[in-house]
């Protein structure tokens, strides 16, 4: 029995992002895992001192490219609450549409990467092929494939025409049929089950006490989804969170796969109820006071704490991103796992390092 210390990352073929893990191994079994950060840290919370509160929308959007729209939405909702701005109903529905499109493309991306983490390359390609359709919708409606820049304080910048909504619906239909075809592969395949069932188990109590968020928490059987806060237009849209009870990597995969279908359903509802009217209101004055704002991102709940002092520069912007809350889960799940399961377990929390370090 020999103890080995293996450095995992920062540049690793499985990980798209630089995270460093010091794994202490006893034979093949991990006894200790210590993550190291700082490879992506930019210190952008400090930028509030030189960018005004309108420009900060575009900065927070670039915290993370995958959930960019939801970052900006959370920030805008915070400032709107602080300044007492009522956003027009059409803007709130449009925000739901774009945010759910973002959730879909993020989950499809994750499903692909997850399949890649245990070497199922063709499944990775399939999911990313479907994902391109969502990116095309994004580009056609907002102008950019990934960083959509639709949020402004007081509403949204772009509007959807009737043709565009019809286009979205028909694209979603084809996405749905293609996903249905992959359902048996991702959920019933022998390879997938062998690599994921019973790996990295977290009980509901553990998950709750560690303060986990998002699909990682919901896969352990805790019904917690920030969309239950009924921000944006979620008070008019029927919504029940997706919950699984097993708490292993397979359950997390199932939660995310089912959430893609849920997002399709939410977009359909939002388009069906889309009211007419203004898409943004004029903003006058400057924010003052302090506020917290929460939004459900693909990876979980993001938490913004904003403090302003009546000038055009905010005093403090604090972002608690979902992966930041999920990292402690890694320290609990990794000890006891085999070395070959490390990529699967690390990816099962859907790590977004650029979010974590900002």
């Amino acid at each position, binding site marked *: 029995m020999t103890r080995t210390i293996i450095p995992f990352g920062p540049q690793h073929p499985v990980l798209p992002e630089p995270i460093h893990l010091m794994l202490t191994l006893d034979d093949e079994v991990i006894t200790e895992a210590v993550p190291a950060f700082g490879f992506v840290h930019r210190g952008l919370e400090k930028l509030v001192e030189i960018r005004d509160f309108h420009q900060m929308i575009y900065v927070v959007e670039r915290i993370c490219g995958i959930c960019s729209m939801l970052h900006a939405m959370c920030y805008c909702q915070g400032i709107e609450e602080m300044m007492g701005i009522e956003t027009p109903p059409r803007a709130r529905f449009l925000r739901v549409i774009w945010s759910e499109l973002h959730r879909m493309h993020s989950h499809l991306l994750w499903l692909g990467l997850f399949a890649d983490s245990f070497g199922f390359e063709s499944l990775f390609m399939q999911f990313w092929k479907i994902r391109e359709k969502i990116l095309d919708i994004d580009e056609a409606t907002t102008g950019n494939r990934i960083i959509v820049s639709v949020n402004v304080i007081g509403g949204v910048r772009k509007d959807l025409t009737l043709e565009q909504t019809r286009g979205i619906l028909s694209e979603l239909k084809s996405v749905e049929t293609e996903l249905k075809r992959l359902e048996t592969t991702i959920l019933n395949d022998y390879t997938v089950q062998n690599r994921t069932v019973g790996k990295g188990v977290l009980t509901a109590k553990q998950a709750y006490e560690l303060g986990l968020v998002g699909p990682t928490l919901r896969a352990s059987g805790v019904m917690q989804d920030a969309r239950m806060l009924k921000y944006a237009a979620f008070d008019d849209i029927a919504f029940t969170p997706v919950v699984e009870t097993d708490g292993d990597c397979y359950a997390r995969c199932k939660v995310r796969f089912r959430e893609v279908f849920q997002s399709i359903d939410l977009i359909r509802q939002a388009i069906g109820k889309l009211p007419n009217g203004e898409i943004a209101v004029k903003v006058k004055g400057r924010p003052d006071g302090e*506020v917290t704002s929460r939004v459900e991102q693909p990876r979980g709940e993001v938490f913004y704490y904003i403090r302003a002092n009546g000038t055009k520069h905010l005093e403090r912007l604090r972002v608690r991103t979902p992966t*930041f809350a999920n990292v402690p889960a890694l320290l609990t799940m990794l000890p006891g796992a085999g070395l070959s399961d490390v990529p699967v377990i690390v990816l099962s929390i859907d790590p977004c390092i650029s979010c974590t370090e900002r």
Partner: protein
Amino acid sequence: MQGEIMDIGLDNLLGETARIKVEGYRFVTISCVEINEIRMELLYHFDRNFQLKHLRLSISRDCRAPSISPVYFAAFLVENEIQDLFGIRFHGLTVDYDRTLYLEKDVKTAPFCKFAVVEKSPVCEEKTP
């Protein structure tokens, strides 16, 4: 701000956190705000079924704060972050990166502080709880 805010001191921080944990609250995060040359403010955010609770702790810049990571394990990461970016030292951390989470070893200043001071060893400790 949504949720109730409670002002606390250094001596009853750990007691308050333990009580909140028994009440079933989850840890959300800690926000650190620089008030002036001397004072810093630490805001502890907790959540139970989407009901927020905030503890507001005013602390002198050169004081050591007790870490709540023995109570809430998840707090170690954010406490290390504050240690790096604001220079407030915590004692009793379960995993202590010793100011190397984001910073290189030779950095002695706190990058997020407007009134940046070179790090000295803390002069005052908190009173025994």
